[in-house]
Structure formats: C-alpha cells, structure tokens
C-alpha cells in the first residue's frame, strides 16, 4: 500500500486506543466495518461488507449506481443503521439494541460523539440555507464541540481561507456557485477537526467546469494524510487521490486494491466491464 502514514500525525483530537491496541505501528484502524448488511424493504442493498481505513488512508469507493457505495458510507456515521454488522470507529465499537424488529444504536450520545468525529460532505452540499457561510461553519462547532463564538469564528475563517472562499463568509449559500458551496461544505467539515472525513459523491452535482476547484481542495486534503472515505464516480480522481480503491457491485465488495491494481489490472469481469463503461463518460 503506497501510503504516507509515516509523516507527522496531523490532528489533535486523538483518543486513547492507540496505546491500548498494542504493537502494530498503524494502531487500530480509524474506521472498521465488518459484515455490514442493510436492506430497504425487500431490497438488499448491502450484503455483508467489510471495510477498513487506517489512519491517513484515503479509501475511494467506486461502483455503478445502486451498488450500495453511498449507503455503505452513510452506515459509517449511522445515517443508515445496518441490520447486521459491526462498526468500530477509532477503536470504539458502536453498540446496538433491538427495538421491535429494528436494530437501533443504543446510545444517542455515542452516535452523536462519533458523528462529530466523522464530518461528512454531501453530494447536494446541504449548507443550511438560513445561515450565512460563516454561520454554517460555526454552528456545529458551537453546538457540538461547545467552542465559544470567538474560537468557532476563528476556526471557521481559517478553514474558509483554506478552501479559498474566505471572502464569501458573509454570503448566503444561495448566493454562491455550486463549487463554492461545496467548498464551504468542506470548510464546515474541516472546522470540526474530525478524525476522518466522509465524502459522498462530492462533485456529482456540479457542472464540469466547477468540479476542478472542489477536486483540487479534496486532493490537497488527501495529501495532508487525512483519513478519508470517498464515494465517487470520477475514476481519474479516485486513481489520483486514493491509497485504496474499493469496487462495490450489488451490495458486495467485488474487488479492492491499490489504484494501480484496480485500474490497470482489474481481475474480475465485472470491474473490467465497469471500467470500460465508465471510460466512455
């Protein structure tokens, strides 16, 4: 795996497990999913998926529409609750209990804590429409991390500057282009100083000429050794930024490996088909 996790550990909030999990230099994976199964009604979307991302890994999930890649990503921060399977974030296993026929996380506090540690960037940006860009970036910091106004503001300005739209801080989301909105959404995620970032098709809602600015930002984050999980349709981008590429097909991981393995020498027929089809895009 061509990872660069030897360089300095970039971020501050780092809970205890590292010491506890023994000799392995990578320590525990930041994100570990095991045997994830999820269905919507009679439709089985995920049929037993295992996935791991170590510290500093950038994992790209590819696959055709309906392969379950977005659902898998949403299971990581429990926006979807899988019926079966284990989710472990930075060594902490999420506990579930049964409520009637459904399985639900047993502690809302634990879920919220984990979510605060895994910031998500959505396909549709989902900036809060009634708040200015600055307020958007400040709100979760204030409410979840309990930062005071000055701290939150300072961090917001830093991250907005980082994504290159500090000048738009007082604008409302609807006044920005799609690319700017998505960069603001990335700033909002960064400002939480999360252990890992989750990207759900971050450029799929953008016009081609706006994709570039967002991709550049994400790429620069990947180069900082942040742990990132990325669902994307953009093969070139996946090859560019990912340490590991996972190909999902009909709710299962069909193939996974380094970008070189996946894109240059795909083994399964399905992946070959998928890649040749997406080349035509």
């Amino acid at each position: 795996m061509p990872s660069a996790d030897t360089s300095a550990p970039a971020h501050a909030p780092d809970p205890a497990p590292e010491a506890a999990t023994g000799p392995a230099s990578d320590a525990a994976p930041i994100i570990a999913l095991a045997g994830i199964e999820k269905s919507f009604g009679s439709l089985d979307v995920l049929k037993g998926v295992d996935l791991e991302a170590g510290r500093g890994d950038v994992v790209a999930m590819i696959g055709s529409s309906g392969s379950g890649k977005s659902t898998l990503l949403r299971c990581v921060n429990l926006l979807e609750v899988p019926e079966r399977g284990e989710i472990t974030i930075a060594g902490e296993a999420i506990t579930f209990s049964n409520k009637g026929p459904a399985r639900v996380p047993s502690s809302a506090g634990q879920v919220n804590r984990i979510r605060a540690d895994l910031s998500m960037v959505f396909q549709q940006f989902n900036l809060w429409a009634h708040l200015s860009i600055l307020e958007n970036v400040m709100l979760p910091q204030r409410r979840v991390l309990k930062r005071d106004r000055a701290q939150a503001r300072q961090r917001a300005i830093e991250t907005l500057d980082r994504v290159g739209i500090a000048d738009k801080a007082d604008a409302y989301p609807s006044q920005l282009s799609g690319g700017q909105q998505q960069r603001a959404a990335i700033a909002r995620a960064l400002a939480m100083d999360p252990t890992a970032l989750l990207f759900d098709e971050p450029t799929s809602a953008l016009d081609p000429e706006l994709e570039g600015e967002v991709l550049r930002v994400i790429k620069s984050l990947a180069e900082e050794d942040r742990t990132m999980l990325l669902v994307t349709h953009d093969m070139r981008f996946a090859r560019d930024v990912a340490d590991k590429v996972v190909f999902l097909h009909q709710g299962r991981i069909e193939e996974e490996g380094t970008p070189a393995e996946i894109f240059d020498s795909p083994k399964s027929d399905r992946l070959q088909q998928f890649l040749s089809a997406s080349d035509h895009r």
Partner: protein
Amino acid sequence: MFEHCPAIAEQVKLALGDEALSISVQERAQWFSCYFTTKKHLSIFRAAGVVLLILAFTVPVALLLGFLGALGKASRWPVISQICSLYVIMVRGIPDIIFFLFVPLTIEIGIEYVMHSFVYCRDSAEPFFNGINIQPCSEAAIIPTQFNRIVLAVVAYGIVFGSFAANIIDGALKAVPFGQRETGSAFGLSQRQVFFDIHLPQMWRYALPGFSNLWLILIKATPLLFLLGIQDIIYYADLLGKMATRRYSTYPHGDWKLWYFIALGIFYLALTMLSQLVFTRLERRFNKGMVINETTSGRV
C-alpha cells in the same frame, strides 16, 4: 375643554328646528367635536381598543396551541398524537360560529363545576346539575363581566385559530427539506439542537404566507365577538348610527348608519393593510438566503 358643548348642542338643536336660523361651518365643527366625545360615543373607540386587545392576546395563544397541536400530532405516544389529530380535524371541520358559542360555554360551565364541587359549595345539598338545569351555587357562578367575556373570547379564538395554525405549522415543518435536518444530525447535533437551530428557523419561511392569511381571517372574524355578548364596534356603530330625534337626544341627527359602517370598513381595511406591510417585512427577513421558487422564478 368641552364646557362649551352644552351650549353648542343647544344652539344647533334650535337651528335644526327653526329654518330661519343657520349653522355656521365653525359651529358644525364644534358640534362634531362635542358629538364624538360624548360618553356614549367614546365607547365605540373603547370597543375598537377591545378588538385590538383581543387580537393581540389571541395571537400568542393560537401560536402556542398551534405548535402544541403540530408537534403533538407527530408525537411518538399514540394518545397524544391522536388527541392532537382530533383537535385539528374537529376544529377544522366544524363551523367557527358553533365553536365561538361552544367553547366559551364549556369553559364557563367547566370552571363553575370545579368551583361548585371543589371550592365553594362542598356542603351545599344542591347538585350542580339537577337533571334539568345547571345550577352552580351563587359563589361559584361566573358573573358575565366584560373582562370575563374578553378572556373567554381570547380562549375561544385561540382554540379555533390554534387549530388552523397547527395545520400551517405542520405543513411548514414538513416542507423543510430533509437534507437540511439530516446534515445537522450528521454533524452530531442532537435532535433538540436540530429542531431549534435548523428546523424551526427554516420553518417560518414556509409558514409565513399561511400565517399572514390566517391573521387576516382572524381580523375579519372579530365581528363575531357579539356572539359572546361583547359589545363590539359593530354593536356601537349600529347603535350610534341610528336616527336620533330632537326630542330625546342632545345631539340629534338622521340615520347615519351608512357612515358608521363605512368608517368600520375603513378601520378594518387600515388594519389589514398595516398587517400586510408587517408581513412583507417579516417575509423579507425570513427569506434571507432561502431559495424556494428556484424552479418557478426567473425561468420559463
């Protein structure tokens, strides 16, 4: 200030009886200023004040009940959600007028029952309901003072309009795109925080047109106050507009009902137009950043 009034009134009255005497414009003006400030006439201004007062107190009551109804309808406890659904359906489905008669009456009887049975007349042999009549003992009986009637009016209007408000709020809460709330959850905000920081502030934008409508309907429903025995502006307009003869009145005049009702029309029109102004401002404020008619405005 009005010491001159008896003299003016007398003078004009004389002039009306005797065609030889004429009334100057100045005398006319003085006469009107006196006429409008008689004790009897001041009561129509007070009645207008009462209308505004009832409106002002009804709004918070209706909003409160509206929120309780809308949030209660979505409650996870079936008892609460069913009661709230029933409230919304019942009040919507029954004509307002019946409610204005029914609600104050039930509240009145309810209070009297409680007072009769538990506070005042516990020793009384007389039952509250003797099979034919409801008879609270004298201490428990509510005296229908103007104040009591106004309180009952506020409660009645609050209940009826609270139900409409509940519908508006319910719809507005559902209109906020799910992604907006979900994103809050995705960042670790609690359900409470999502509601107060995201859902509620965005709801207003969707609720405001409905509220603006409802407010106008409420204003226009105030003439129903007479059903509650409140001597409202309509009552006084009718009373003061009646022809006043020279024989019985200090300020005799013809049948002026037309003018009084025109004045009432202007009063209500001014009230609604002012409200429109306020709502336009509110809308502008809550619209900030919100793009709602993205697909319809500015595009063909």
